[in-house]
């Protein structure tokens, strides 16, 4: 599982997904719908945290 947190000013959104593909899709949808902006696939993956067992 991986978690990505949005770092837009004032935003507290985070998302946890099992696959990179789902994580990128969810993060890009959030940035597009909430901030009218683009977040790059590589940036999302570089900023994602791997969660260990029991942390989700």
């Amino acid at each position, binding site marked *: 599982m991986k978690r990505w947190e*949005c*770092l*837009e*000013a004032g*935003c507290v959104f985070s998302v946890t997904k099992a696959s990179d593909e789902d994580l990128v899709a969810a993060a890009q949808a959030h940035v597009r719908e909430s*901030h*009218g*902006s*683009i977040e*790059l*696939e*590589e*940036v999302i*993956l*570089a*900023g994602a945290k791997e969660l260990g067992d029991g942390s989700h």
Partner: protein
Amino acid sequence: MGTFAEIRPVESRFRFTRELMAGSIYRKYEKATRKFWDPKEFDYAEDARDWKRLTDSQREGILTITVRFEAGEQEVTDELLPTIAAAHALGRFDWVMFLSTFMLEEARHSEFFALWHDRVVGILEPAEKAAHWPLRDHTVDPSGRFQVGEPVYEGIPKYGKKLMDAVHSGDEAAIEGAFVQFVTLYNAWVEGVLTMPSYEIVVDTTEMWDALPTLRLGFRSILGDEGRHITFGTEACRLLIEKNPAYEALVHAVVDEYRGNAVGMLEYQRNVPGLDLDKYQRQKVRHYRNRCRELGITPDQTLIDQILDPTIDFVVGVEAG
């Protein structure tokens, strides 16, 4: 004359290892080779038809951005070499591999803008494009607190020379420090923060006008490449900062040197009518925080506050004071 083994042990002539091939930088190289695109395969006819129906102010608004992009892409293609020399000197074959795709991609971005300007606008020669160049010294902070610098045309060559001098010295710490400075300016600050609003301005503008689909396609294609470039730079720097935490101060110093370029929207970003410039200004905070997260460093809160401060704004064409 020595034997082959004396000249160079045979084992050292091979670079690939399981660790290298499992690493994230090699993965970026693989991705770059998989996601190849060619601007010569784009169809520029619809953009050429749209260009004829745009008003003069619409044309000038978009051209002030595209001419800066073309020049900037050419500049970075030409100035990337020191990073390859440094990667070689540091024994990072995965970095050399990735940087070979990086340089090709910067050249491809340059070619895209040259083709678009030629086939859509009908300009190709340098003097034809220079006529549309917005002068940076016309962007001023009325309060006089911040100066807008030239990170691409002054900063990157300066730090490139420093990096190349370090490579020639053979001093590993000097190479690492100069690499951190160059890559912070180029990948993290210029590509990763300062330029990001301009991509979105072009995408938003072409959608708002329902025009220039190939320009939009080109910008989206370039953005895909930029994601790899930015995160290569921040990951390489993070590895060096983990090795020597003192390098974090170099990152903050380089950003601080060109702080003025982030605290307001610049001349070429303000020419398209009807856009919410505050949106692009706010996004810079996300990009800056993203870069710091990737680098594993603490963001400078005063910089964030200044980016978001509505009382700090630039004007174009008015002298300070």
